[in-house]
């Protein structure tokens, strides 16, 4: 199959595995493999980027890449069921063929982060690219490039946490500090095998993160979480240039042409989705 240079043409991929992440089955992680080896090679990406998952007959959806480039041979995407495309996707089976366009957008500033401590703050289902980032940094080839890694990850309840098995394994490591929190413990929550706090992400950040010196923070989550986390980070001493955000917006083309996803003069799919808070402050954004 010829590789096309048409930016709208997806690579064909196959669903290898589907993992149901939450008890309400609203979140599933899909493992995709490329049908053609050269497509997989062309899809060289860095954590922070996204791809357009193309479901023929239904449409496309922009989803952050949840796997790390250090994980070879497959890609992970965690998709929430919200509309017609995602509903159909959730009903697909292992072995089904669909399409993938990417990698799209920019990525977290990995070069700049070298030699610094990294704080990762995530909320709810917006943890995909953060998983990608954590796996990337923890890879033996990369770990020494970064200082301390602290992760604050919060969700509504334990059931809403994603990548549970991996999170448990990370809490057992000594090269990463995990601070997991839930808004509330539900009465049928499984007793955690790790220490899990109760509280909203911003307050856990305030409690656990001591300083912003020589540290960069990656924040990914719903607008309300970002709104309340930001002043806390600033209080701790992070500069606006060291607070990294991943924005969301409705997208269609994913390549900066259809005009839909702009925040001011920046297109979230093309100039983003990763922006520093300093950049966001200069953007005339409807959010």
């Amino acid at each position, binding site marked *: 199959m010829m590789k*096309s*240079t*048409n*930016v*709208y*043409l*997806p690579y*064909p991929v196959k669903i290898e595995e589907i993992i149901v992440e939450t008890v309400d089955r609203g979140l599933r992680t899909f493992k995709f493999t490329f049908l053609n080896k050269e497509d997989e090679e062309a899809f060289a990406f860095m954590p922070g980027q996204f791809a357009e998952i*193309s*479901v*023929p*007959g*239904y*449409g*496309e*959806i922009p989803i952050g890449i949840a796997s790390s480039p250090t994980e070879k041979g497959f890609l992970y995407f965690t998709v*929430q069921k*919200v*509309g017609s495309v*995602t509903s159909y996707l959730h009903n697909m089976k292992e072995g*089904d*063929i*669909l*399409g993938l366009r990417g990698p799209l957008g920019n990525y977290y500033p990995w070069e700049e982060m070298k030699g610094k401590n990294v704080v990762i703050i995530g909320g709810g289902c917006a943890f995909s690219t953060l998983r990608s980032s954590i796996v990337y940094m923890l890879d033996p080839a990369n770990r020494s490039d970064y200082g301390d890694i602290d992760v604050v990850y919060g969700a509504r309840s334990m059931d809403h946490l994603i990548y549970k098995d991996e999170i448990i394994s990370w809490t057992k490591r000594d090269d990463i500090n995990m601070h997991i929190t839930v808004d509330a413990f539900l009465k049928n929550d499984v007793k955690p095998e790790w220490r899990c706090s109760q509280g909203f992400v911003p307050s856990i950040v305030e409690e656990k993160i001591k300083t912003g010196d020589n540290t960069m923070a990656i924040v990914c989550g719903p*607008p309300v979480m970002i709104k309340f986390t930001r002043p806390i980070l600033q209080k701790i001493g992070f500069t606006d240039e060291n607070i990294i955000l991943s924005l*969301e*917006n*409705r997208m*269609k*083309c994913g*390549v*900066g*042409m*259809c*005009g*839909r996803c*702009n925040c*001011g*003069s920046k297109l979230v799919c*093309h100039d983003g989705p990763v922006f520093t808070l300093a950049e966001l*402050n*200069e*953007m*005339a*954004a*409807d*959010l």
Partner: protein
Amino acid sequence: MIEKSYKKDEWQGALAKLAKESRVIAPVNGGTHSVFKTLEEGDVPDFKSSKTRLSPKSVVFPQSERMFEYSLDEESEENGILKEAKKDYAEKFVAGIRPCDARSFKLVQVNFDTPTYKDPWWINNYESTTFIGQACNKACSTCFCTSTGGSPFGEEGLDVVTVDMGDSFLVKSVTDKGEKLLNTIGGGADATDDMKTKVAELEKAAVASVKSEIKTDNLKELKETDLFEADFWKDTFDGCINCGGCTFSCPTCWCFDIQDEVQKKEGDRIRNWDSCMFPLFTKHGMGHNPRDQKFQRIRQRFMHKLKYYPDKYDKGIMCVGCGRCVEVCPANIDIRRVAELMNNYSK
């Protein structure tokens, strides 16, 4: 460079002959207004009306365009594999296009032809079109092309320029493509010095006839976030009904939507024009809509055209001053008034 004069019926005849072998698209009057359409047997191009109701952007960027087709037959090994829809990029000709519209393609090109991504359909369509322009001897009351970097006799984006001298056209090639076309067409007579003088006079009169103007000199100085927070966005434009009239008639608006359409076991992925004025334009799958209020959408449109685009590309504003949006708007939202409010704004 070729510069000739043609008697009007000789030139019409040349176009009619061209239309037999290739696609020629020209303004045709359908009753109350003219629109660009492919000339068929019997169609008389309208070179008199000053501007078509809708811009010719649909020649290069059709309102609905098939991108891919695919089979959804589970038995087929092609199931779910997208294939590019077949296109015909044989050279086509647009005649009677005004300088503002020709220039608009150059402004739109930066969106579809970028260093990182290229839109194959827009680029192929644009490159396989020869533009035969017609200078405007007289501007309409809503034209303000000279304020946007254009001119009624402008040549930007044109391969051939024609000037109506009364009983004949002065026809001049601007690019190699244009020269090739004129060589193919042949005929006509060499342009005389008198004619060239007359054309220079016509140009002077045409520029003077552009009475409407906007000032945009202050826009670059203003901070994007300050202009965004201006009070006048909140209630000055409440009459807007959020239809797509302005965006669809505008030659420099390019937003589009991508949809899949399926019938039985076959499907198409198509793209359609979309409009930032539509409330659903920015609605997220989760239900959140960052621009669910009318004033936010109006602000987006004018900030994009008059602030974000000029800041990003350094090609001036994203407007060629054709005045179509002004004429078409049912609620009289006038870009000239908006530009004035924006340019005069101070924090």
